[in-house]
């Protein structure tokens, strides 16, 4: 289990994250949402261990991040940043194999390749093995990178909780691919027991796929809980300063969020506000 409590991060004297936190259990898909600048990426980086918080601490499987050896940590959690660019041409399969770095010398090269192929298949890139990564579309590149981090936490016999931390993985995917990607994450959580923490911008995706939603605003934790309790008109208004309606369609289990064209108060023009 990932536990991050009362996380505070200071940048040049200013708190950019304060009393924020998140818990991720194995098999759980947690969506991190909030307006730009709310501190989503900072919290994700603190959980990933890239930033050491000035307040609070992050632990994975009851062990504080600082106590994890680098290679051991890499085996239990993988991180995918928003855009990762390669400076040179490289076959897709080689990129995915690079995710197996923490297991180097512990598994035969043939097995590494099999795992890489399996992960490519999972993200819908079967047969892309020898394609040059730099000739793929933005969406395909992002999925190839996802395959790389999947390979990093892929484990066959050994059990133990493993986690994926993703920074906006649906960016540059089309609407169908977004759904496919989130169903893949859902499936990984359910079947492989991965605990997944992902930043999402699309509230409907969070509503449809997440077990829990963590809503940040201005570096603080605003609300956290099952999607239906967080993604309410009030929650969205508080978190994004946006008027929204939550609509239930007959025959569908989950409600849809419709955002309305008027901002609540954040960007409102004073002249029109005064009658």
């Amino acid at each position: 289990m990932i536990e991050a409590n009362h996380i505070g991060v200071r940048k040049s004297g200013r708190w950019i994250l304060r009393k924020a936190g998140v818990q991720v259990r194995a098999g759980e898909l947690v969506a991190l949402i909030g307006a730009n600048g709310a501190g989503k990426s900072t919290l994700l980086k603190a959980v990933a261990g890239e930033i050491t918080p000035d307040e609070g601490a992050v632990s994975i499987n009851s062990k504080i991040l600082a106590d994890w050896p680098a290679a051991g940590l890499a085996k239990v959690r993988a991180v995918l940043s928003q855009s990762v660019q390669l400076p040179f041409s490289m076959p897709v399969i080689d990129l995915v194999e690079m995710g197996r770095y923490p297991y180097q010398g512990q598994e035969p090269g043939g097995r590494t390749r099999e795992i890489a192929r399996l992960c490519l298949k999972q993200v819908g890139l079967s047969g892309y093995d020898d394609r040059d990564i730099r000739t793929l579309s933005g969406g395909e590149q992002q999925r190839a990178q996802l395959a790389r981090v999947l390979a990093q936490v892929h484990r066959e016999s050994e059990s133990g909780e493993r986690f994926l931390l993703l920074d906006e993985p649906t960016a540059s995917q089309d609407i169908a691919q977004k759904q496919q990607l989130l169903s893949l994450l859902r499936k990984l959580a359910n079947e492989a027991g991965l605990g997944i923490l992902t930043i999402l911008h699309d509230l409907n995706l969070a509503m449809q796929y997440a077990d829990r939603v963590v809503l940040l605003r201005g570096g603080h934790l605003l609300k956290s809980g099952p999607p239906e309790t967080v993604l309410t008109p009030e929650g969205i208004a508080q978190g994004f300063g946006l008027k929204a309606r939550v609509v239930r369609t007959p025959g569908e289990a989950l409600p849809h969020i419709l955002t309305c064209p008027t901002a609540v108060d954040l960007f409102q023009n004073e002249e029109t506000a005064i009658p």
Partner: protein
Amino acid sequence: MIQSLPKYRSLSRLLSPPVLTLLLVISALCALLIGAYSLPVQQVGLVMGEQLFGLEAGLPQTLSYLVWDIRLPRILLSVFVGGGLAIAGAAVQGLFRNPLADPTLIGVTSGAMVFAVAGILFSASVLGVIGSWLGYATVTVMAFTGSLLTTFLVYWLASSKGYTSVVTMLLAGVAITALGGALTGLMTYFSDEDELRDITFWTLGSLGGANWQMLALLVPLVLLPAFILWRQSSQLDLLLLGEREAAYTGVNTQRTKWIVIGCAALIVGACVAVSGVIAFVALVVPHLVRLIQGPRHRSLLLGSALLGGLLMVWADTAARTLIAPAELPIGILTALLGAPFFIWLLLKTKRSL
């Protein structure tokens, strides 16, 4: 842009390490025969037999001297300098995540040169041992210090958060090269005739001074760091994704960075100390190998070392035969061939700069 990679597979097999090694050995043997005086195979064979196995062949002293003390050390030196520069270039390009990061272009060679020239003056005036093993050692230590300092300086100037700005990197190289040129010029201005000859030789690049003492110093200083670099292959692969992603995958990025900077600086420093400034080898060779074998460092570093040695043997053979009995400084030759290549590479990567 390469569309898909399989078409390079056949070429990749053709230039596989065993094939390159074979080509390297054959080239070195050919180079023994070619020179201002062409030698027949049997005579060279007899000299080698005499020196290696003590077979008395009653050859003239001069022939034995020419083959064993002049040509052979020089050819071996070119193999190690070429291979060393190429492997250092490949590793530095991986670290900087950029194919334009050549030790000469980013100022590392220049930094090494300033210190080397200072070393020449120092060993000549203070130690009085120029040209001896201790003299080479002094110059090598100085050149290494210079290359280490400049590599670190350029990396520090050009990188932020694990990403390198190419423009800053090349501009830092321009600035350091200008400074290095000025300092070298200053020292040149105040040096006597003997020192001047040595300094000129260093700044133009030449393998002409090759001897066994030099080799004894150079070989371990190239082989050991090259081996350490090669052992960092997977870490260098992951650094291609950026420092942050490499760290997420379990790489100790600080450690890797220091190992790469240290080893590359050691190799470049040692090469500059024995042969002066030989530009563009470290740029061209890794680029060719990358085109053929892809950017993964396990094959890239090995391939670069072998191809670098191979090309340098022929470049030096050309340098000493083209205008025989006079000699072209090899640094001039490699710059003449390498500079257009660099311009081509620049045009190709113009958009991403």
